[in-house]
């Protein structure tokens, strides 16, 4: 990008510098640490996908979930068709798409929550750290301990703040320092400072945003590996929403997060990887595209994705 057209500036190539000063072909090493966006890893992966035309994939030890042609049914109705995707560890993966595209169903299949629906069944496989979640002998209760869930509407138990957090560990037979566990869980959920003086008060007396963070504290008290979030902010005001999003970015250092949201701006702001689903003529949801959030929101590969995120469809 050098200026041209200057009659007195003869366009000659500069002589190469001495060998020890040869410019680095990989570009300048002048990136400042503070400017590293947290989506960098995902961005590299997505770039590989685009360049190579291969499906987005991660190294085996970076994977938490691997879906292999997963289909979900309620009776004879097919809600999700042939979804194959991978969920990377310690990242926030967002599932977006129009209402009815099966994203919540997909999310609930990640911890076998749909087992609780009589007519629900799946085809295909979900591998969790390489283990088939739906294989014989897998205990769904243990699955749900490791893969926790936070729901759309904050749903604290009608118990004290303390007991809300202590409930799960007690059921799981925790015999250690319960006070310490409650405190550390509330701290991780960025709620401790607001409730430390009223742990005996009812959890339902808190504000909506605080209740949702209490539910997150409750989810992490049983030491999960993954936190699934199903529209966790749709009942919250914008500031409480931003607080939850900041909390998610803290939590991802220790947990893998998968979030369903129909707030596209939330997926854009808060996630590292975005999967866009839509539904076919038979109303079965399917995966259109999965890429780094940066790519999805700056240069989606698929026209359907572009139409959806720009508000022209869906």
């Amino acid at each position: 990008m050098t200026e041209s057209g200057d009659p007195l500036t003869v366009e000659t190539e500069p002589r190469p510098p001495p060998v020890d000063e040869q410019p680095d072909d990989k570009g300048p090493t002048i990136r400042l640490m503070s400017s590293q966006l947290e989506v960098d890893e995902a961005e590299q992966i997505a770039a590989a996908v685009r360049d190579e035309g291969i499906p987005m994939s991660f190294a085996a030890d970076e994977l938490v979930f691997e879906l292999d042609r997963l289909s979900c049914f309620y009776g004879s109705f097919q809600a999700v068709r042939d979804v194959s995707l991978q969920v990377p560890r310690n990242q926030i993966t967002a599932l977006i798409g129009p209402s009815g595209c099966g994203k919540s169903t997909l999310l609930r299949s990640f911890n076998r929550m749909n087992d609780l629906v009589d007519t629900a069944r799946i085809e295909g496989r979900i591998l969790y750290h390489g283990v088939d979640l739906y294989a014989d002998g897998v205990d769904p209760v243990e699955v749900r301990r490791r893969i926790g869930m936070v729901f759309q509407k904050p749903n604290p138990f009608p118990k004290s703040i303390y007991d809300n957090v202590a409930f799960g560990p007690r059921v799981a037979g925790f015999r250690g320092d319960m006070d310490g566990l409650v405190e550390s869980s509330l701290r991780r959920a960025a709620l401790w400072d607001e409730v430390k003086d009223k742990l005996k008060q009812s959890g339902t007396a808190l504000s909506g945003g605080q209740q949702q963070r209490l539910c997150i504290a409750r989810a992490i008290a049983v030491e999960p590996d993954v936190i699934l979030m199903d529209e966790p902010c749709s009942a919250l005001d914008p500031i409480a929403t931003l607080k939850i999003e900041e909390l998610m970015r803290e939590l991802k250092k220790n947990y893998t997060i998968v979030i369903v949201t129909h707030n596209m701006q939330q997926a854009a702001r808060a996630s590292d990887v975005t999967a866009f689903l839509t539904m076919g003529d038979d109303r079965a949801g399917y995966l259109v595209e999965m890429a780094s959030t940066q790519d999805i929101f700056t240069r989606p590969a698929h026209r359907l994705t572009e139409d959806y995120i720009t508000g022209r469809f869906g």
Partner: protein
Amino acid sequence: MDRPADRTPQRAGPRATFDRALDGVKDDVLRLGALVEHALERAGRALEQRDTELADQVRWDDRDVNELQRQVNTEITTLIATQGPVARDVRQLLALYHAAAELERMGDYAVNIAKLAQQLAGEPETPILKQIPRMERICREQLRAAMRSLVDISEEDARGVAARDDEIDHLYNSVYEDAMQLLAVAPERARQTTHMLFAAHHLERLGDRVTNIGEDVVFLATGQVEDLNP
């Protein structure tokens, strides 16, 4: 059951992620300014000292400037697409985007001066008109002041940057007059004289680009678009 390590999440406001990213972009634009300032200083020195190797370095290092500008563009595009910035946040991103483009162009002027230095070094030696090193020094001071006003979002400092552009313009006019005289009295040195005139021209253009960054800062601080160098 293992207890998790006790750790309090950093709570630095509900838009901490965006603020950190914005700081990162600002750092990168400042870095870009520092690269250009360094390029200009070396180009000026190459011109005065007939140092063709130094001029080569300036030309090579321009790749760093171009690469960093592309990186800043990508960062800002991503922030606009994903973070929904409004009000001062979006003005700041737009101002940084434009400042990065101006800086990239200033880097090109430094390269052009380096090329002129190489051509002058191939001609019989002629003293450099004394206004040119002064123009180069003022340009660098202006650039540094503009970058500072950008970081501090100081409207007052930005206006100061623009006001000093007159000094550069005055020196450029003076170079032009001297060049005309030289052409008349020493036509055999016409090439050297025109090279110097062009070097001064590049510096004058560079000064205008610095003023443009001052206009960006005024826009950032006030939301008003204003021509500071009418």
